[in-house]
């Protein structure tokens, strides 16, 4: 437990599994490296030859077209070869264990695995068992972490607000089930954001969440006061089915972001959302499409940030 599974002996990033436990210097290096990649994505020729000859395997044990596509685009823009594997749960129950699958793929000369899995800790498990030359990027494991999403959110915040040290940031929604929220909280606190707030009903907050370094609010009006950055989380239908919430309508009334609620924040506050959005559940269309929303730039930045992560890992 003493050594960080993400760093190699020289303290360089070997795997990107979670934003937790990474020093600010490494997070900032990723953001700084992503800057020139934004320039690349704005050119006509959006490719650079950096990862030519490298093979990147997308191991998606949990389906996701959006995330998989952005990783695929990022890898291809680095001139890497991309192999997509959508490993449905049923093929796992045929007897091949998670690690069997990974070992078989390692034998095919993979350089990097991008892993998404429904269980927390899956990326850590894979990283512990791959050959030392293979790098693992966590594209989301259960409720635990989604580091590239948090990093692209940090990049977006920095582009709009410049200095992390002056900000009040609020994360709104289902913190309990959110790997995005956890990764955002670790990144924000590491980068020196002085006040990080979580706003949610009690049924959507994990135990002792304040120990992560956040202030807890149940009242959105109070929680959004003087906030510079609003990070909205997606609400899934299962929450109503598991008796955590009565209805999407009541949730929207008390925790959904409407123009009126947005007005309680600072006038130049920005709104982020990891996507896909549930319009009318956690966010009103007027806000989502409004001038304070940076949701579309997040997508572009997401490609640049993932290119940066892959480049840094491949070069270590």
């Amino acid at each position, binding site marked *: 437990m003493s050594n960080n599974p993400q760093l190699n002996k020289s303290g*360089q990033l070997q795997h990107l599994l979670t934003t937790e436990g990474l020093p600010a210097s490494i997070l900032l*290096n990723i953001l*700084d*490296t992503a*800057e*020139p990649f*934004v*320039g*690349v994505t704005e*050119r*006509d*020729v959006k*490719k*650079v*030859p*950096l990862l030519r000859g490298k093979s990147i395997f997308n191991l998606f044990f949990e389906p996701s077209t959006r995330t998989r596509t952005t990783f695929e685009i990022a890898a291809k823009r680095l001139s890497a070869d991309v192999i997509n594997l959508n490993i449905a749960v049923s093929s796992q129950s045929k007897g091949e264990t998670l690690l069997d699958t990974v070992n078989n793929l390692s034998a095919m000369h993979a350089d990097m695995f991008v892993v998404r899995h429904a269980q927390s800790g899956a990326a850590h498990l894979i990283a512990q068992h791959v050959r030392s030359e293979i790098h693992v990027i966590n594209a989301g494991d259960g409720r635990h972490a989604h580091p590239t999403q948090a990093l692209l959110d940090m990049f977006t915040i920095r582009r709009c607000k410049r200095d992390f040290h002056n900000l009040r940031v609020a994360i709104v929604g289902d913190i309990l089930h959110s790997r995005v929220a956890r990764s955002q909280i670790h990144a924000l606190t590491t980068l020196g954001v002085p006040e990080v707030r979580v706003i949610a009903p009690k049924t959507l907050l994990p135990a002792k969440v304040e120990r992560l370094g956040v202030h807890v609010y149940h009242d959105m009006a109070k929680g959004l006061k003087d906030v510079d950055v609003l990070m909205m989380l997606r609400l899934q239908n299962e929450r109503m089915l598991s008796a955590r919430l009565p209805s999407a309508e009541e949730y929207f009334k008390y925790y959904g972001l409407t123009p009126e609620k947005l007005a309680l924040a600072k006038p130049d506050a920005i709104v982020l959302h990891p996507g896909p959005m549930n319009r009318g559940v956690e966010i009103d269309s007027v806000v989502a499409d409004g001038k304070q929303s940076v949701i579309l730039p997040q997508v572009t930045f997401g490609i640049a940030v993932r290119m940066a992560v892959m*480049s*840094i890992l*491949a*070069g*270590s």
Partner: protein
Amino acid sequence: MQLPEAEDLLAALTDRMRQGISTDTAVVGIHTGGVWLAERLHRDLQLALPLGALDVSFYRDDFGQIGLHPQIRPSDIPFKVEGSHIILVDDVLYTGRTIRAAINELFDYGRPASIRLAALIDRGGRELPIAAQYIGATLDVPPAKMLALEKKANGKLGLSLYDKRQGNE
């Protein structure tokens, strides 16, 4: 060893280049020293097309050995490369690999009509068939040393020498 004055070399280089300039000449500096030089050339030669800057980190051939450069600057080519006449500017021409990378990167922006190379110092030691059309001076630098351009506090440029072990190029 005695290093020449960068400002003197730049003045001589600028004069040498004057004949080869026209209204459709574009100048592109290679970060970081080449960009400083290109800024001065762009001003002193009164070029019409805007100045370009290239960071060749994504096109280098040594990524597998040394990984990504810690400080990558954005590349910015604000003119149309397709059909353009470009002069690439770098501070020290050595193995030629940086220029190879810069040419590859330029071609990803479009197909130039011509590319010429201007370098403040040619220190020999080519590992690729690259040659500069405009040179400030030729200098014999010991292989264990690196030659670099610096910008002093007053904005003037100067040359310095350091051991290869220190710092990155």
